[in-house]
């Protein structure tokens, strides 16, 4: 990178630079290019699609398979046919005064009128003793390697962390022929709060929409009224099974062992309130998938001096943005998981909204169009087959309130 900074800059121009070729970025690129704008999409990966690439599940409501890889390919083809330029294996290291600085062999800077940050999310660390060993991967890595690269990441696999992502990856992995021994909680520590069986059940409950399997259906009922009674019933059991995969809501992994690579884990029982009980057992495994949840990837918005706010309901720190996905920095927009953790369908709708918001600046769409795009996001949210955060609606409300406060504070006629 030192070299990258130092080389004489070769420059490129565009109307819009989109950072991230995932669902939000791809949809936005199509919307923008189809109205005649010059669009450049930058991504660190060697192909487009982002997290779509690893997604493969049945959407019960639509009675169809969500094959992210195919959806991504269709979007890319369309974007390319509209003249969208893609720069792969390219990282953005700075955004300043509508210049995007990139680490690309040939192009060093892109001068642009607007920027859309669609950088997505990263996985939270789940630092159990032994987590650095070879054979410990994140649930997201497990998903990519299983569904995209068709690689069996291990023979005997367990998951630590019980949440919508780990459950769906475990199912996908079992379909791919891997022996999934079960899902466990992480041992309670200062750094992770999701070791309390009660809270974990609540979070699973919130994923009710995905309901391809019994726990989500139960989950749905938990949310809709029968809550306390069913919750208590669940907690009596040490074991639930989903598609034949054991979910141990009363067992926690305390340590990952192995000389060079993973050989076993220590498992202890855990009380309803999340206290470890008893001596524990040793379980032979060669692979451990950690699922600590997702965090919006906001680094670039910070580098671009966007105002950042902490809204736990959205997944943590996120750039402050308007209902139209405008940030506090003129010309910079956001879409997808950088605004809060949700499913791909919501990201795609947000990609469209951000694009239309930009098109409005170029006077290529009307206010009415924009309101429709907002409605589309809300619809996508209510129809989403997967919900990662239980209070996402509240989170979006808080964001709108904070944006209104911000507008009042700066006292400008900020039309965002």
């Amino acid at each position, binding site marked *: 990178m*030192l070299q990258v900074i*130092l080389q004489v800059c070769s420059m490129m121009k565009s109307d819009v630079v989109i950072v991230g070729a995932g669902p939000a970025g791809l949809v936005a690129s199509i919307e923008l290019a189809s109205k005649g704008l010059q669009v450049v999409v930058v991504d660190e990966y060697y192909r487009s699609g982002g997290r779509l690439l690893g997604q493969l599940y049945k959407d019960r409501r639509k009675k169809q398979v969500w094959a992210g890889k195919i959806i991504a390919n269709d979007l890319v083809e369309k974007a390319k046919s509209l003249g969208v330029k893609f720069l792969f294996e390219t990282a953005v290291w700075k955004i300043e005064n509508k210049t995007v600085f990139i680490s690309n062999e040939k192009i060093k800077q892109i001068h642009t009128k607007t920027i859309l940050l669609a950088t997505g999310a990263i996985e939270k660390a789940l630092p159990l003793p032994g987590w650095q060993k070879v054979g410990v991967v994140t649930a997201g890595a497990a998903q990519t390697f299983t569904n995209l690269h068709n690689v069996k990441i291990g023979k005997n696999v367990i998951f630590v962390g019980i949440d919508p992502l780990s459950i769906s990856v475990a199912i996908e992995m079992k379909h791919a022929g891997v022996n999934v021994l079960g899902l466990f909680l992480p041992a309670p520590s200062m750094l992770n709060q999701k070791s309390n069986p009660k809270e974990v059940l609540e979070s699973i409950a919130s994923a009710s929409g995905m309901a391809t399997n019994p726990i989500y259906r139960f989950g749905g009922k938990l949310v809709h009224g029968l809550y306390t009674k069913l919750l208590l019933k669940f907690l009596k059991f040490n074991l639930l099974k989903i598609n034949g995969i054991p979910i141990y809501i009363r067992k926690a992994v305390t340590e990952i062992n192995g000389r060079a690579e993973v050989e076993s884990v220590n498992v202890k029982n855990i009380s309803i309130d999340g206290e470890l009980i008893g001596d524990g057992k040793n379980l032979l495994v060669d692979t451990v998938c950690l699922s600590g949840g997702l965090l919006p990837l906001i680094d670039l918005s910070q580098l671009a001096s966007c105002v950042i706010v902490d809204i736990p309901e959205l997944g943590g720190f996120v750039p402050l943005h308007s209902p139209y996905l405008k940030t506090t920095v003129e010309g910079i927009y956001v879409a997808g998981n950088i605004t809060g953790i949700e499913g791909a369908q919501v990201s795609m709708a947000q990609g469209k909204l951000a694009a239309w918001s930009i098109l409005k600046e170029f006077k290529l769409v009307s206010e009415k169009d924009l309101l429709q795009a907002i409605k589309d996001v809300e619809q996508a949210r209510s129809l989403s087959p997967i919900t990662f955060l239980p209070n996402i609606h509240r989170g979006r409300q808080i964001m709108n309130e904070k944006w209104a406060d911000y507008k009042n504070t700066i006292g400008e006629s900020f039309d965002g």
Partner: protein
Amino acid sequence: MKQKVIVIGAGIIGTSVAYYLSQKDVNVVLIDANDIAAGTSGACDKAIMLQSKKSGPNLQFAMKSAEMYKDLEEELEQDLEYENGGGMILINNEVELNVLRERVENQREAGLNVTIICGDEARKINPQLSPKIIAATWCEQDAEINPLKTSFAFAKAASNRSMTMHLNCRVLNLIEDNGRVIGVKTTNGDIYADNVVLCCGVWVNNLLKSLQLEVPIIPRKGVILVTEKIPKLLNCNILGGSYIVSKLQEASVEKNPFGIGLSMGQTKSGNLLIGGSREFASFDTSISSFVLTAVANKATEAFPCLKNTNLIRSFVGFRPFTPDNLPILGEVPTVRGLYIAAGHEGDGVALAPITGHIIAEVVTGQTVDMDLTPFHMNRFLQSFTY
């Protein structure tokens, strides 16, 4: 009853003061709005550099402090990544050579073992150094330490004695009674004590305000670039000559508004910490591409082999600047029971042990065998109106 002392600020200065106080028969309470080394001490480099200080009281203090560092790992029973590997200031041209020659002369008179060596001798110590470097200063007494580990180790050692700690606890106000500070009002309630020591660097005026006091400590922004881990490249601390020249010639602010210079060190795990800049920009944490590029340029000029090295991040620290480049140490003249140990700018790491030692002596009423007058807050009283 035992004397009770509140120390505000858990950076390297605050934890050091707390540690040396805990060595005495004193109850110490350490308070920080965030965490240990969460401010300036967590956003700096790792040099204990003596030859960056001009001869005078600061250098005398730094030399005593450097001696204290030698035994600190053993004393605190912690690995602090201490290395007594020496340090050099790179000389790029005749102008720098002349400035540094005079400076080295003064430093030698003050008792520092520093010499000027030729470019080839410098390259013997750091073989990857650019052939364009014409000479360097060399001082064996320069050393390095991990300031994060040191802050944590001070805090731990103090906790093992008499100290209690309140982290994520913000001090809202000092409680004053009849011209004397008797405690602090915090987000966790009121805490009373016999004495209060302010070790909160660039944030010190936030607390002095309630007493209608102010000291001229101003945040000076410094940028540091971090590279990926690389095999051992640096065998000692590195400073660029232009850094010293710009430090000496404060008037050059117009010519070099970002105070671009070069300081380099390599961490135990192999990352290079490359500084930096010196800029007055209040508490703005943004880093411009200009500064990044300029600092990276300086580093690759000194070590051309770095051209293929990846930068992994950059960060900003706020150094507590004072107009005469000396920290403010000792009692606050107008308020009894209140002490200050702040304003070390870039010398906080080097001066931490001696600062802790001296403040502990002063607060417990012992005689100090060093002249503290140059560091006293009084020196700013005339020039400041409240």
